[in-house]
């Protein structure tokens, strides 16, 4: 076995672990090929080093004193605070999207954490959803700046147009909710806690794709290595979301308040909010998306997966095995969550369990007869499945 370039490089840099040093030296003494390789490597290191040294100024840069710099940082902070105010306004204007997307609101309540929510918000695979797939994501692999990307916010405020046909309405009467929704509302049997039904209006989303702006987002978050097909530029993607009914049982106000605060300041929140004893069921007809036929959907999906931290190879493989036009791909954090496929309501559903400060909460999603259901609440699989199976 010859030495690897990595071992040789570390050796040349004096970074070999002490425990490894004798082995490396011994090998080098006896192996002409590795000595030769080390020499080549050392030549390149010196050459690259020389090039980079040319960047060093010949005189010390006129650097302001640390104290003066600190003063300037204060001024900079003030400027940025103004910017942050604007952002809050922008964020508020994108909130209807959240609320209307019901399912995402549930994710915000139950599972999502800020960076993933930013992506879910942006890319949500809202094709005619027939199934739900979950991929587990290591938050450490996500771009650092995703939660605070100004470009991403600009993308939502400038390129995404949201038309709502009315206002969210609240009722306690299932028949009234069904009338407002325009379809029969299914509810679980015997679920304790006071029921509140919220019906969100039909929403029409238009996304005029501005490729340079998307590329700017990718640059800003340090992933300029992800490339999107050029024909995407100028394409119009529209999403039609029918009325969404959210049934809330128990004390949900606290959880909703927490989620609202988090939505205002996604970058500052540290983890998903706790549901407490609130159980929610969201139902909606599968949203419809129309996009130009030339759109290379698997390729876009692949970019999405790379953004979530998959390597290009993994993303290609995963992307090829999924029908992006019918599958909602939801990223969930790897830590503290587990997921599995379960039989529910006569179909296959996706069950996600999350542990939060010792408490368990779940999210169960399934699609039946063109309706998308998401149930979230405290507890485990048994209670989730029995609630879901009791829908009438």
């Amino acid at each position, binding site marked *: 076995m010859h030495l690897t370039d*990595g071992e040789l490089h570390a050796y040349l840099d004096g970074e070999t672990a002490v425990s490894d040093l004798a082995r490396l030296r011994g090998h080098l003494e006896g192996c002409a090929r590795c000595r030769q390789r080390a020499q080549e490597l050392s030549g390149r290191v010196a050459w*690259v080093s020389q090039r980079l040294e040319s960047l060093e100024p010949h005189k010390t840069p006129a*650097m302001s004193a640390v104290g003066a710099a600190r003063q300037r940082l204060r001024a900079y902070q003030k400027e940025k605070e103004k910017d942050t105010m604007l952002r809050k306004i922008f964020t508020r204007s994108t909130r209807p999207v959240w609320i209307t997307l019901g399912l995402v609101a549930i994710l915000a309540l139950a599972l999502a954490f800020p960076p993933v929510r930013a992506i879910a918000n942006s890319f949500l695979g809202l094709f005619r959803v027939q199934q739900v797939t979950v991929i587990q994501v290591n938050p*450490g692999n996500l771009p650092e700046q995703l939660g605070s990307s100004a470009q991403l916010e600009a993308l939502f405020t400038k390129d995404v147009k949201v038309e709502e046909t009315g206002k969210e309405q609240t009722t306690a009467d299932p028949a009234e909710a069904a009338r407002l929704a325009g379809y029969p509302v299914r509810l679980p049997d015997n679920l304790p806690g006071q029921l509140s039904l919220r019906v969100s209006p039909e929403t029409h989303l238009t996304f005029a794709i501005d490729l340079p702006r998307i590329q700017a987002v990718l640059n800003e978050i340090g992933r300029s290595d992800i490339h999107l097909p050029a024909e995407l530029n100028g394409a119009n993607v529209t999403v039609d979301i029918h009325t969404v009914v959210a049934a809330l049982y128990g004390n949900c106000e606290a959880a909703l308040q927490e989620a609202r605060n988090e939505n205002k300041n996604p970058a500052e929140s540290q983890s998903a909010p706790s549901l407490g004893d609130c159980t929610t069921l969201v139902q909606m007809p599968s949203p419809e998306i129309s996009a130009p036929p030339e759109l290379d959907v698997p390729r876009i999906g692949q970019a999405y997966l790379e953004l979530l931290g998959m390597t290009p190879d993994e993303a290609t493989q995963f992307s090829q095995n999924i029908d992006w036009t019918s599958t909602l791909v939801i990223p969930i954090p790897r830590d503290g969550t587990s997921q599995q496929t379960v039989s529910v309501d006569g179909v296959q559903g996706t069950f996600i369990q999350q542990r939060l400060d010792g408490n368990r909460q779940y999210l169960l999603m399934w699609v039946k007869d063109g309706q998308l259901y998401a149930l979230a609440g405290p507890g485990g699989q048994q209670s989730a499945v029995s609630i879901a199976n009791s829908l009438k």
Partner: protein
Amino acid sequence: MALTAEQLKRKSAQDAESAFEAVFQEHWRRVYALLYNLVGEGDEAEDLALETFWRLYRLPPRLAQEESLGGWLYRVATNLGLNALRARKRRQRYEEQAGYISTLELQGSLPGDPAEEVEQVIERGRVRQTLAQMKPRSAQLLVLRHSGFNYAEIAAALGVAPASVGALLARAEREFEARFKRLV
């Protein structure tokens, strides 16, 4: 850096403020110098350094519990610096083709042989262009290594295993050499 992200998070707001001050005092010069080398212009370097610290102020790193703030800081700083290089890439290439050399660039060099100075300015332009074209993480690796970071510090800043730094550097240097030679 003794303070970890987790500790900073746990401290009260006041403690966080003074922790921030300490981080600023300790790292400002190094962050600024690194960015100055990278972008070559004092004002731009200062803006980028301010942005780096502002991000730290606003968004204490929340990911790995034991990640050092120093590591976070230099990752963000190199990221911002390289983004700035990428943004100016096109303009600069155009200017270089037109034989234009920024007076700011010349101010940084020694009084001496003008032909040599021009040579150096062109070389610096190529180095920056090469870094801008490289895979972001590879470029970050080289910048950090040549700013005097050891393997453990690089590993902490970029979130890679310390044992993989040698191999990553070897790969980054190959990429640098290949891209640089294409520009010449």
